[in-house]
């Protein structure tokens, strides 16, 4: 069986941790770790510069990263986002917007590139994995993690990347795998 190093696109601590984990797959794979800001700020205080840094530039980077994966001929594309994409969070509207936009761009890409044999999926992780302190801005869910932990990169995220990037996942596309230890359980 072939073993191909997974390409990690993105900057920041989470992307660095994934590079350090040296993930391999039997399919050519790109993992996009978007630039997700973690600076909480009331919506009404956001400046255009804040919004450009939290929304416009990360989205442009993510679009280019998706295009780069396609151009490279990769057949597996995975985006990592925090679960505040789905839940929203007070004082983090600018951050949640980007996360949810990338999560739904995954669905668009899955629909458009499926005929080319490319699968595109999303893994939604606990916000803390992106350095977001949800406790500081108030509850974003109704319950603590069912598994009593919000997860680690090596033990909890990497196995899901291996799953979604494998040949076995050939019929899995447009999905969001929520891996936050059981906080967000909406459909």
């Amino acid at each position, binding site marked *: 069986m072939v073993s191909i190093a997974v390409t990690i696109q993105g900057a920041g601590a989470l992307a660095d941790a994934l590079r350090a984990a040296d993930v391999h797959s039997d399919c050519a794979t790109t993992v996009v770790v978007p630039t997700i800001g973690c600076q909480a700020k*009331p*919506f*009404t205080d*956001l400046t*255009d510069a804040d*919004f450009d840094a939290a*929304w*416009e530039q990360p*989205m*442009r980077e993510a*679009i*280019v990263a*998706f*295009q780069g994966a*396609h*151009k490279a001929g990769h057949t597996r594309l995975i985006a990592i986002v925090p679960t*505040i*994409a789905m*839940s*929203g*969070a*007070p*004082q*983090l*509207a*600018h951050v*949640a*917007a*980007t*996360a*949810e*936009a*990338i*999560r*739904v*761009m*995954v*669905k*668009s*890409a*899955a*629909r*458009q*590139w499926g005929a080319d044999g490319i699968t595109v999926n999303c893994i939604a992780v606990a916000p803390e994995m992106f350095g977001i302190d949800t406790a500081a801005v*108030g509850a*974003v869910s109704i319950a603590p993690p069912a598994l009593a932990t919000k997860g680690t990169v090596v033990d909890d995220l990497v196995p899901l990347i291996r799953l979604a990037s494998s040949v076995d996942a050939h019929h899995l596309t*447009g999905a969001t795998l929520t891996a936050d230890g059981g906080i967000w359980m909406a*459909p």
Partner: protein
Amino acid sequence: MTNFSSANSGRLAGRTAIVTGAGQGVGEGIARRLAAEGANVVIAARRAVTGEPVAESIQSLGGSAICVETDITNRESVAACVAATVQRFGGLHIMVHNAFRGGLPHKLEEADLDRHWKHMSQTGVWAVLHTGQAAWPHLRDAGRHGRFIIVTSPSGVEGSANIPLYSPVKAAERAIAKSLAREWGPSGVTVNCVAPVAASPALLNAFERSPALQAALEARTPLGRVGDPEADIGSVALFFASDDSAYVTGQTVVCDGGSFLGL
């Protein structure tokens, strides 16, 4: 067109709403529906040539409406629209952001950021920032009558194979709505989204170019038709604008005749 003199109960009497992109299509439908329920309505249109006739039509039917030429991509222009509204009507209770520009079909791998992304980002997500920020002090003053309503799309939930970069813009709007629902909830202001498939001018033009598109869309719709901007979409916006929805916030209602049944 809704008859102003009967069948309406004045649920928005004494309240004032701004509807962006109300010179045509869904925005016009929402504006007419809110006006029919007694709201003072500001038609915030990019060009007065489209907005003025809508305002005059509402006035001719006994409603209260003015047109304020507004560029939603410009923070100062939006602030000026809000200021003109408050000066004319004494307050602002309901901000509806509907205006949108863009949506050219494209291949994601070939998408050009300036051609296929920029306008959608500016008129969608950036305009939510501008309209929300400008409206906030007045919505807060309106307390439990304060409403921020964002017109998004089913594509913002399920993705789009034809216009892939449209979906993330509409998804972002929903995420902002959820976040603001949490942030503004303590003041009583609600924030919700309407996700329509409606007979907008753009969609009607597309049907004219491709009758097969209309047939396909209607065939996959349980209710078998495309929504009417005023009767179908405006009525859902009215629900969110009225006291009936005082305990509903952070939600998206998909008004597409049942095409999307994701929950």
